[in-house]
């Protein structure tokens, strides 16, 4: 049973993960399907995989029922474990890499209700920050906001490191969608968005097309898909719009690269496209 499949940045490699505890990587260039790696290390079904930006090399993260997050790296044509994180007390349900502007940073959501942020600090070292009790009962999904510099419409002088505000959104078993912001090196809950009447299964922050608005999609066990928009650059007032109510659980939402299409996967076995 395949639980997740993700194409890499260029659409040349495919990573899949499964109940059989493995993560497999295929070369899919020119319509081919060549198994490149069979990664073993998890002791339970693997729920999600995520590719890091190619500038860091070929790096893949996976999370599993076995409470572990493993980061794999390809070195000299061979894949190996780069880092293993065992800081959660329950199944890790979701992993998501932050925008490359922030460096190599991974958000992980777990059924123990916590969200961990793993930051690569160089030389095989990873810094870990944990947000405990982010969602009571459990966190099901995490998704990063695109890197936008405040006042980014004005050019930053070159050479100066821009002052990014790191933000991400999470969805949990408390039926809530929460926004998190990093301030002075600490992660704080920025917004609490209430609209769902059952577990939030997935969240997705839409890519930025240069407008000052932010858009988030959330889907839930209650069959609803909401689109949240915020017009003010400070990110304080969010309005929800119901996109659709499906007859069954909606498991997964995903934005296209330019953010003009949202793909939705529901329990009634359809993948719907919306513009």
């Amino acid at each position, binding site marked *: *049973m*395949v639980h997740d499949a993700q194409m890499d940045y260029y659409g040349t490699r495919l990573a899949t993960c499964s109940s059989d505890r493995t993560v497999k990587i295929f070369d899919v260039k020119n319509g081919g399907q060549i198994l490149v790696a069979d990664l073993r290390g998890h002791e339970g079904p693997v*729920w999600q995989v995520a590719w890091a930006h190619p500038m860091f090399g070929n790096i893949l993260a996976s999370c599993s029922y076995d409470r572990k997050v493993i980061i794999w790296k390809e070195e000299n044509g061979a894949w190996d474990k780069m880092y293993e994180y065992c800081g959660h007390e329950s199944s890790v349900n979701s992993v998501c890499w932050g925008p490359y*502007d922030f460096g190599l940073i991974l958000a992980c959501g777990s059924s123990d209700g916590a969200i961990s942020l793993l930051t690569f600090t160089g030389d095989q070292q990873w810094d870990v920050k944990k947000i405990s009790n982010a969602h009571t009962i459990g966190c099901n999904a995490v998704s990063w906001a695109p890197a936008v510099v405040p006042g980014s419409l004005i050019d930053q002088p070159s*050479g100066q490191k821009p002052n990014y505000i790191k933000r991400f959104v999470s969805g949990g078993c408390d039926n809530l969608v929460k926004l998190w912001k990093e301030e002075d090196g600490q992660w704080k809950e920025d917004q609490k968005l209430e609209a769902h009447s059952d577990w939030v299964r997935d969240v997705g922050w839409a890519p930025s097309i240069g407008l000052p608005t932010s858009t988030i999609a959330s889907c839930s066990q209650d069959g609803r898909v909401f689109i949240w928009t915020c017009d003010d650059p400070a990110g304080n007032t969010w309005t929800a719009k119901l996109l659709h109510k499906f007859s069954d659980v909606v498991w*997964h939402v995903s934005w296209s690269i330019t953010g003009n299409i949202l793909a939705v*996967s529901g329990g009634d076995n359809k993948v719907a496209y919306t513009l």
Partner: protein
Amino acid sequence: MEELDVEPAITNIPAASDGKHLGFAWGPGDILAYETLYMAPGSGCSFIHEVRKDEDIYSPILRKLFNESHHIFVGLQTIREDLPSKNKKTQLVPELNYCLELSSVLVLQVSILLAIELIWNLCEVLFIDAAPAGPLLLHLLDWVRLHKGDVDEKAREVLQSESPAEHHDYWDVVVSYVLQGRFEEARQMLVKQATLQPAARNMYKLMDTLLSKMPFYNPGGTQTLTEFDVKWRHWHEEVDRCLQDNSFASNQHLEIICKILVGDEDTLLEHKELLSTWYHFLVTRLLFCHPTVKPTELHYYAQSCMTMFLDLRSVPEPLDSILLAAFEFDIHQVIKDCSIALNNWWFVAHLTDLLDHCKLLQSHNLHFGSNLREFLLLEYASGLFTHHSLWQLAVDYFDNCPEFGHVYLELQIERVPLDTERKALKVLRICEQRQMSEQVRSICKIMAMRALRNNRLGSALSWSIRAKDAAFATLISERFLQDYCARGTFSDLDLIDNLGPAMLLSDRLTFLVKYREFHKLYEENRFSEAAKLLLSLITAKIAPRSFWMTLLTDALPLLEQKEVSHSAHCALHCGFGHDLCFILQ
């Protein structure tokens, strides 16, 4: 589009069995779908399906079409604004028509492309030429003639036969000519029949006269539309008189032709097979009933002709609704229907662009606030981006979308696989030309990492310099220095020796270059200068700690050189002492 009031098409994924969920992931131009059970382990089908739009863009003929239309598109954007619409159109559309001819070679796509050509030509006639009453009918006649090639084929067959007038298709050809208003040719054909029936000569003479006297409006002439109308009605009465007089009663064929000339609907409808389409029927009907039709009256006739022509049972096809919308001069409806009916944005994107440049498209705000033209061009160009070479065409399209073109390009160009250095440079050049500094940095970083992983330090260094990435340059310089310690030699000397001001990107890099320079001086026996340089390296403190021993070791032989000046000697000794203290700490 928010106004989409049609149910979206459903694509079935085979093998998605009951009780299972459908997982998916975005690919570059497609979606991956797979059977799964969310959050529940289990066994099941481990296939992954790839769902893709019909891949027109991979056909070689269509690639040529896309290349040509790209060329035309770019030309159109730079054309002078004050040129009247007609000039713009005449310069560009013939080239597009040529492309369409090219592409009709591809058998599978023929019907779609012919339909596109049909729609395109009609749009030219109605929207761009915008002919008034009088010339309008003539243009419509041209349009129908252009798209009914089988008449000429049949005629050729008939004429090449032993006795054309006795060929079983002879009368079909004559009637077809008449239906299309091609009277010269009809008359020539009739002559052949006339010679075979000397007894009926007078009848044939009469028909010939009628055909030759039918007035056609001359747009370049001095006759007004009213004068033409009067003349035409006069002629029409004459034809009707012939019918009433039973002048052609003894010849069934000529009688039919006479009825056609008078515009008898029933007779016209009896020839559905020869007309083959309702829009041919429309034009023919107008020709013989109302040649001075005004553009605003077209839709009324179009609707009634379509209803009369099509069976009660048959449902209008998408093509029919598109043509009808065109006859109603509803440009937006045409574009909307074409978008739905065709599986590639190519046609609507270019049509809309052309109409926009002829100022025929009112601004129609869409969801993102961008206008219709831009929306369609963005969609079309995004589709091109998934192709390994056509993506370059897409760049020009994005460039000409003032609102979102730039950001779309930023998002898409990062996904172009950088298979070769050459391709990476191509992508880079595009980014640099457009001041897309983020993307430049990202691409250079990716290439630098790749080079580093393959131990191509020189390449990695040049990429990180291009990326202006100080941190990475430092990392690579360290590697160079490590290599030196390990092997005693430097690699990529050419690069290091010729860096110029780029060496100032990072302290470590500067040290590397200067250290290499020191070695060069030493090899050239320029010991005095070497000593000075070494001294400055030590005192400037840009050397990494790990290197201090090496530097000191390097200094030793210098102290033994006589050429080294006395002051340098002292300085070195002092430097020594200074640093020895540091090391001993």
